[in-house]
Structures are given as C-alpha cells and as structure tokens.
C-alpha cells in the first residue's frame, strides 16, 4: 500500500497553496495548476496531509493505492 495525491481538476482553481506546503511533491504548471508526484513517500506523509486539509476548494485528496493499480473495469 502506498499513498498517492490526487486532484479533482474541476474543483481546483489554482490557489497554489499546496505547492507551497509540499514543494517536494507538487509543482505548479505555467498557469498555476498543480502537477503531482506519483506517490507520497512515508517521510512526506504529514506534509501531504497538511496540503490536503489546507486546499481552499477541497480539490486535493490522499488515496491509498496498491503497489500496482488495478485496471479499471469499464471505460
């Protein structure tokens, strides 16, 4: 099990707070929207949680994924 950051791209309005709180995992693109690292290493978990809880539009979340993601059933 690893942790992974996910953003709801519709809810995100580019406040950019998340990139300030955990720059190791989140970088902003040229328009200010977050680009996320693939997985959250253990030592950055607390920072990632802080970024999630501080997102003004609640667009960011942490999810638990199995090492290999299951293929989705239907597209």
């Amino acid at each position, binding site marked *: 099990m690893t942790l992974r950051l996910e953003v709801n*791209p*519709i809810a*995100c*309005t*580019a406040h950019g707070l998340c990139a300030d709180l955990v720059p190791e995992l989140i970088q902003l*693109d040229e*328009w200010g929207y977050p680009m996320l690292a693939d997985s959250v290493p253990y030592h950055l978990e607390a920072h990632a949680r802080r970024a999630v809880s501080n997102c003004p539009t609640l667009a960011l979340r942490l999810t638990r994924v199995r090492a290999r993601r299951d293929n989705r*059933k*239907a597209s």
Partner: protein
Amino acid sequence: MSPAHARQPGHGQQRGNGRTGLISRLTAGWHESDRPASLHEHARRYGELPPVHRGRVGGHDLIEQVTAAGLTGRGGAGFPTGTKMHAVAARRGPAVLVANGMESEPASGKDQALLGRAPHLVLDGIELAAAAVGATTAYLCLPRSRAWLADIADAAIRERQHAGIDTVPAEVRELPHNYVSSEETSLVHWLNGGEARPTATPPRPFERGVRKRPTLIDNVETLAHVALIARYGPSWFGEAGHADSPGTMLATVTGAVAEPGIYEIAGGTLVGDVLMAARAGAGVEAVLVGGYFGSWHPVSQVASLPFTRSGLARAGAAPGAGVLFALPPGGCGLVEAARILRYLSDESAQQCGPCMFGLPAIADDLTQLAAGRPDGDPLERLGRRFRQISGRGACRHPDGAVRMAASALSAFAADAHAHSRRRPCIAAHRGRPRTMLLPVPQPATEGAWR
C-alpha cells in the same frame, strides 16, 4: 439470408480468420433509397426482431453472445461491449440504457448516416441491450443541432409503438451540441438535469449513472451490431474481420478522395485499401487518422497497416470513430492542425485549468508556427506544454488535443522546422494554394450547456 452475402464486389479478400475489405451489413440496401428504411423494409432486410426473454435471445444469453462475438465499442474508445454490458447487468436494481448518437466529431458522419438510413437497426439494438442488462428506461441522445435526425428517430419509434414491438421504447433526447457533450459523463450529467459537460470520475456510469442507476452507454453503431449478433450469432459476426477485430465497422473517409463518404469495412482492412476504395488521389502524402483526437501520419507509414486498434498502434495511431482524412497535396498539415486545435480549445468545457489555459496556449503556438511567424522557439515550448497538459483533465479532451498537435509536428517535421526558422510553408513554396480543408464548426454559443 444474412446481409453478409450482400457485400459489394471487388474488394473482399481472405486474410486470416475472416474476409476483409468492403462488406455490407449495417449498410445493406443503403444504395436502394436515400430515405430511412421503414420497419417493413428493415424486417425484410434483416428478419424480425428476435424475442428477448430475461436477457435471452433464441435460447442464448445475449451478453454472452456479444462477448463471444468480440464486439468492441464503435464510438472511439473501443472497449469490449460484452464486458461493459456484464458490468451493468451485475449491479443491483433496474438499469438505464443510453444510446449515444451525438457524433460530435466534425470529421465523422457515420452515426448520422446510420440513424438516417437504418434507424430500426439502432432501435433494435437499444431494445435488445436494454433487455439484456435489465434496463427499464432507454434514451437515444442526439445533438440539438440535427433536428432532422431526431425527426427520423421519432418517426421510427412511433412506427414501432404502433407495431407493439418494444418493451423499453427509446426516448429521444436532444442535447446541446458541443465537442465534449458526447462524452459519457456529459450525457449522464445532462440526463440528470445538469450541464452537458464531463464530470470527474469515479463513480463511472456503469456504477452510478442516470438517476444513480447503473447505466450502459453505447454508441449507436455498436448497438446496431448488437442487433445483428442477436439475429445471426457470434460466429456469423466473425466471418468478417480479423480475430482481433471481428465484424465490420463504419468509416468516414473525406479529404482528397474522389468518393468521400461512409464505408463499411471488415475489421483488419488495410488503411491503403480504405483510401483506395474512396479513390484517394495519387498525390496524397499525409492522412489524419481517427478524427480531431486522432493523429497525422505520412500515408507511407500507415497504408499497409490494418485500420484497427492493434494494427494502427504500431504507428502510434488509433481508428477513433473510424475517421480518415486525406490531406490534399496543396494543403499544409500544420495549418490544418492549428485550425483543429483552435476549435478544440474553443470547445473546452472550461472546467479544468490545464485544458482551459493549456489548449489556447498550444493553439497560439501552432498558429504562429503555421504562419511562419514564431515568437521564440515554438517547438521547444510546444514540447514542454504537451507534457504539462496531458492526463490532467477530468476527461480526455486535453489529451486528445495534445496527441493530435504532437502528431502534426512529427508528421510534418520538415515543415515545422522550416516554419520555426521563419521560412514559409513548403506547400505554399511549391506554388500551390494553401487551403483550409477540414470542417471546423462554429463554436457553441456561450453557455449552451443545458
């Protein structure tokens, strides 16, 4: 008699498991009249609608039949239809069926042609698929801009009501006509009273779709194939096409071809053979494969490949909804790509940042490049922006746009390099006219999402 034998002469060839080339199944009898086939003509052509009882047709489980036939979605994604039907049927409670006839791809015309000529084939498929997955409601979604199509569908539905053949009669719904409105989640959102814009997934429609019910969404051509599989069975279906792409598919072939139009081809037919059937001009050097979300290629790269997902994957292409556009020798691929990108950018649902800001940015870059008036290094900038935008929208809109733009840069690499050094278009340089060729519809009016 099954319509498989009504194929047009000349092009069929034995290759692998089944025949390839032009085959008339869905298109049987289209040349006889330019009106929609009546219920009577339809029954004469294909036989009566087989009775369905608890998901079984003639003693067979329809979902198993569809799975065994190997039918895949004809709307562009190519997902196995049987698997999708099974996923919906396995959920609790009554389901909803949505037939997707939106065909928002400007370079495609096959769904309109199918509904316009053989509406009962699609309506048979709706009735059968609804029964198979336990749907109690069925919608046929059409774009509001094509009222003539809704009229044809409504008339056909009335004919069927009169004959009393449907247990789940289709209800026509006319949606706003935007490029992204044909996306599965857009249909569900609109049918639930929202806007015809994509929504974030999960839940996916098969889990919780229209009115929170499990929802099967299939392209209208896919449903027409279901109607034939129910009648003639999976082995008949596989008499046409390769093992990895059985059956037939409708393709829209336009551009520099003497006979543009809709062609029904067996799975595995070579791109070159499809172009030849439409009598592509000898000077055609490049094609757009798969539509506005597709990719540009030199003809030499794709002509000998099967027009299938697996075949085209070798060139990094995909058939999409079966679109081939032959770029005329005088046309500039970069100009066309820039125009398509501007259109796709205007058609963004304006919900996700990378799409909302990224697509106009790459449309600007491509436009500058095509005009030979680059600001800085547009090729470097485009490469960086492609990487930034891909995979970051709620739907596939930005990914499709990036894919098309990136393919144009590689298919027209010589032109792109010349343009980026402020040299004029090679096509124009040869003294040929620089023409604008692909249809780019007017963007939807502001706020027309409901």
